[in-house]
């Protein structure tokens, strides 16, 4: 609090002597002052503020402390301005070579999150034994001790009954401290059931890059050196990934490069692009196929990367097969097979019909893209890939980077730079027999079953199928779940067909939710534990990449955690471990004690030590001069902690050419890698690849299964009954699903093009609206074959006719008193997931959210 320098005596003199005062003000001030003097309490805050006017502005009152924002997965390095233990501002950490001083708008909303009165102050337990959408849990406050004792008792009960596999850990927003709670703790207890949220993020995006260039992760793009950016269903000026960085350079890029955005609605990025391709939802693969066709027929492939015809003459002619022997490939594999099996008939004329885009635009974009050569980017976002057959859309949209030689090249698409963080120590020695046995049971999410290949990173059954866990729990398939702990997730809001999660969670006898706010998921919990806010109150670190660099950015408590909050990933497991040790099961605690402070060699003595040592331990290679391997150099932990961020070395272009993590080591148009993975999964189930593809819902059969290709979208709903395709999109103010309770979110919601403040709108093209008899402001119900939601209609030209575009993020019926209309009962706005069916891209396990369903709209 600022010092109160004015005494009543001074103020009265000022008031009496200052001839510039108005009469009204004078009267007001003296009256209050008189009263205040009588009471001896001084002026009211309002008048104190007035009295201080005229005082010279002083120097800075606080200090900037480094931390990290996880409002989206840009994971920017930030600094927080703290004055007398209060966090009052957030800005970008200039030391980061990834985001620099730039900060997107959502970062400021974090201040309203950490000081959200609707945050849980204390552990709570449920007193209403009934669980349901309309059942008030009747939470009462309990002590941490009581909460931890109950949790420990429940875990010990599982151990006693040899049912450790019936323990489930659900993970939401994480840092790389996640291995403690998500992996180690789950395995040490003896369960295979650690379920992450990754499948509801954008896993399918990684499918294309892996099965072509051997890279299963998100990409960064060399935008400063590029001449053409073709962006598929991504909105980098609004949402993932590295919004701060791309916002900071866009003004310069638009002057140098041509930007084309493929997106059914006019997004923030499309508004600042040269071309907007308002594609029919689900048809991105067709456009990519046609563009590939044009690149090859016009001779615009990279001779340096792909190779050339031995005779020099371009034999890629529409409709004609090519003899593979005539082409000498360099750093790629299977370009001719790709042409023969898929591309030869995928002309722009064909694509125009399928995509609903003008022919001349398709040809122009393809040609200009080709002219840019290797300084071009095919930027694959969540749009084309988080669909039922999205894995192949991911491949064909991404493989353009291979055709032009942009892969790993200047001005092209890049991977993450090397970083040197370490892993936690191995916990194998602390696994007892029960743990080893339990961890080998089948998982609750059905990954790896015949119709869920989930071939992430080439390994069948390796990808989580987050949304499927609800069905597993509900049907006790393969068995029932008895004890579950979940942190910073909200699956019955963030997953499609959330009602299934309501039912599943009702079935779990004992559910713990570690969360900042009581959310929809919390409403089904037996115990709530107050969580720290990742930006202001937590120890952790995460990594991100942009601008040709990778950064590792730490989180540290910049203020004292509010109320009784504890850190989800490290402090809570430690406290549980202590309780388990008291009950005779000390494996976890003994393991945790092996994570010692690298500077002193000391063992953690309590949960606070543990949280800190976990970060120091895993980042040691970055800050310890004796362990230096590359990138920024620090003289020790303290210097690193103050800086808050480590930057990698600059990007090593082209190092991965013919050294890719694929079966052939090359960029695979014919993916031997995918073939091997599919064949392995087929073999496990004693069947053929074609059978796997059929039960998984794909159209490909035979060799086409191993190449990038167009698959028709699989959309629910009869066109007559449900006339509009539902288009989901994200907000530049969404902090994942958690910012709707911030008044600044509501006050500024119209920074999303077409949206409105303090409202949740579905944007409809005026042509469709006229047919439906709707006008802006009408309250409407949107219904799909699987659910419904209520919101407000908004007529907007930036929507493709035949579609309705609505932003995700609102529709909370709990979470807080701003996010919900009536807390615990009535939602503000509507949750998109209510209308989207629970379907999957089964090759990656991803939950589908695009081109999934048609809807109908009626006025209510």
């Amino acid at each position, binding site marked *: 609090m600022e010092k109160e320098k004015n005494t009543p005596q001074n103020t009265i003199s000022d008031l009496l002597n200052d001839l510039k005062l108005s009469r009204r003000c004078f009267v007001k001030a003296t009256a209050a002052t008189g009263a205040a003097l009588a009471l001896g309490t001084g002026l009211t805050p309002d008048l104190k503020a007035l009295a201080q006017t005229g005082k010279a*502005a002083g120097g800075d009152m606080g200090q900037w402390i480094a931390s990290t924002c996880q409002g989206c997965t840009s994971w920017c390095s930030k600094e927080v301005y703290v004055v007398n233990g209060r966090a009052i501002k957030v800005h970008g950490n200039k030391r980061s070579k990834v985001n620099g001083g730039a900060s997107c708008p959502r970062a*400021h909303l974090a201040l309203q999150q950490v000081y959200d009165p609707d945050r849980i102050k204390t552990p709570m337990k449920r007193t209403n034994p009934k669980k349901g959408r309309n059942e008030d849990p009747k939470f009462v406050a309990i002590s941490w001790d009581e909460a931890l004792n109950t949790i420990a008792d429940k875990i010990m009960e599982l151990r006693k009954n040899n049912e450790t596999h019936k323990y489930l850990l659900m993970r939401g927003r994480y840092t790389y401290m996640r291995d403690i709670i998500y992996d180690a703790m789950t395995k040490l207890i003896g369960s295979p059931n650690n379920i992450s949220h990754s499948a509801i993020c954008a896993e399918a995006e990684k499918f294309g890059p892996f099965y072509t260039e051997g890279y299963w992760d998100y990409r960064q793009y060399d935008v400063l050196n590029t001449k053409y950016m073709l962006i598929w269903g991504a909105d980098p*000026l609004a949402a993932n990934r590295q919004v701060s960085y791309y916002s900071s350079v866009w003004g310069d890029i638009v002057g140098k490069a041509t930007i084309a955005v493929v997106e059914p609605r006019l997004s923030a990025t499309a508004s600042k692009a040269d071309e907007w391709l308002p594609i029919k939802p689900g048809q991105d693969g067709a456009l990519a196929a046609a563009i590939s066709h044009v690149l090859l027929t016009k001779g615009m492939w990279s001779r340096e990367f792909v190779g050339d015809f031995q005779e020099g003459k371009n034999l890629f002619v529409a409709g004609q097969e090519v003899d593979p022997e005539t082409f000498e490939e360099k750093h790629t594999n299977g370009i001719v097979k790709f042409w023969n099996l898929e591309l030869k008939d995928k002309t722009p004329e064909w694509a125009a019909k399928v995509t609903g885009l003008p022919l001349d635009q398709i040809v122009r974009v393809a040609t200009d893209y080709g002219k840019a050569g290797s300084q071009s980017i095919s930027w694959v976002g969540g749009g084309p890939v988080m669909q039922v057959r999205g894995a192949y859309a991911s491949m064909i949209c991404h493989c353009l980077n291979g055709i032009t030689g942009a892969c790993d090249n200047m001005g092209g698409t890049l991977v993450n730079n090397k970083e040197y963080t370490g892993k936690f120590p191995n916990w194998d020695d602390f696994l007892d027999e029960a743990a080893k046995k339990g961890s080998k049971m089948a998982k609750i999410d059905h990954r790896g079953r015949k119709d869920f290949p989930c071939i992430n990173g080439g390994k069948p059954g390796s990808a989580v199928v987050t949304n499927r866990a609800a069905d597993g729990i509900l049907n006790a398939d393969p068995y029932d779940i008895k004890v579950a702990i979940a942190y910073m997730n909200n699956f019955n809001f963030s997953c499609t067909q959330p009602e299934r999660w309501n039912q599943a969670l009702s079935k779990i006898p004992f559910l713990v939710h570690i969360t900042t706010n009581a959310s929809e998921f919390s409403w089904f919990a037996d115990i709530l534990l107050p969580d720290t806010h990742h930006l202001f109150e937590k120890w952790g670190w995460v990594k991100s990449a942009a601008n040709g660099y990778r950064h590792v950015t730490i989180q540290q408590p910049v203020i004292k955690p*509010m109320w009784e909050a504890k850190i989800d990933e490290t402090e809570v497991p430690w406290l549980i471990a202590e309780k388990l040790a008291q009950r005779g099961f000390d494996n976890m605690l003994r393991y945790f004690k092996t994570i010692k402070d690298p500077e002193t060699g000391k063992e953690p003595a309590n949960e606070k030590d543990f949280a800190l040592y976990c970060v120091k331990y895993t980042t040691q290679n970055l800050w310890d001069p004796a362990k230096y391997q590359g990138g920024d150099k620090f003289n020790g932990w303290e210097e690193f902690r103050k800086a808050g961020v480590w930057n990698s070395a600059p990007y090593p272009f082209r190092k991965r050419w013919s050294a890719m993590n694929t079966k052939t080591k090359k960029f695979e148009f014919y993916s031997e890698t995918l073939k091997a993975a599919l064949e392995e999964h087929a073999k496990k189930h004693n069947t053929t690849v074609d059978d796997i593809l059929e039960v998984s819902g794909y159209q490909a059969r035979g060799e086409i299964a191993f190449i990038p290709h167009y698959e028709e979208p699989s959309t629910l709903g009869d066109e007559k009954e449900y006339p509009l395709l539902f288009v989901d999109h994200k907000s530049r103010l969404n902090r994942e699903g958690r910012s709707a309770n911030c008044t600044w979110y509501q006050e*500024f919601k119209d920074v999303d093009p077409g949206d409105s403040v303090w409202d949740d709108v579905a944007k409809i093209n005026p042509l469709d609206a006229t047919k439906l008899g709707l006008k802006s402001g009408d309250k409407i119900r949107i219904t799909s074959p699987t659910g419904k939601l209520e919101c407000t209609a908004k007529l907007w030209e*930036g929507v493709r006719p035949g579609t309705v575009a609505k932003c995700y993020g609102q529709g909370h019926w709990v979470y807080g008193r701003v996010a919900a209309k009536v807390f615990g009962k009535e939602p503000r706005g509507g949750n998109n997931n209510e209308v989207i069916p629970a379907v999957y891209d089964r090759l990656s396990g991803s939950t589908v959210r695009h081109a999934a369903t048609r809807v109908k709209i009626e006025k209510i």
Partner: protein
Amino acid sequence: MPRYAMVIDLQRCVGCGACSIACRNENNVPEGIYWSNKITETVGTFPNVRYHYIPTLCNHCAAAPCVRGCPTRAMHKLDNGITMHDPNKCIGCKYCEFNCPYGVIYFNWEKPHRFWRSEEAAIPGGTASPKELMEKVGGQATPYFNPERTGTAATVRPKGIVEKCTFCDHRVAKKQLPYCVEACPANARIFGDLMDPNSEVSILVGKFRPFRLREELGTEPHIFYIRDYNPARYRATKGGV
């Protein structure tokens, strides 16, 4: 004496609103009041449609109608060109608000930040009431209250007077840029002294043909917009008959 102005480069602006949210933060601005704001337009018919965004704020006009109309001289010009408001003299007549052609002046109809005085908790015993949280965290009016917003305009303005952007006079006095300028991730806002021919603002208003809002009214605004929000290119054509 300097004459402060701001150049806003619409080509760099990405329409994110960080400027406006950051301003709320820096100046303890209450809900419903937008010191920093925007004008948005969706122009055209699908598929030839575009969305445009123009950031707005007080124009710190050299011939400010709000100053001319103020009966108490609460609204006044500083020597450095900032159109400043003295809350001590404001009688809340709203004449300035009516006179301003840009709608950037707002009246405090109620005591600001009512949200933070509420005594209701969502889960009694489990979550806090805003009032309880304020008592725990401290701060004035809001928990993330900025005490450095001081000196001339009040740290938070009381009920019954108007308020508007002051070009962060409290920061400028410390040789710091207005917070919206710092907060813009796109470097789309450029602040400086028009009296200095070598300042960035002077160079930019000479390099481009800036437009100002409602220039024809003669207010002499000091917010200069350069370039275009939508920088799209197209193939050369002569059209047709």
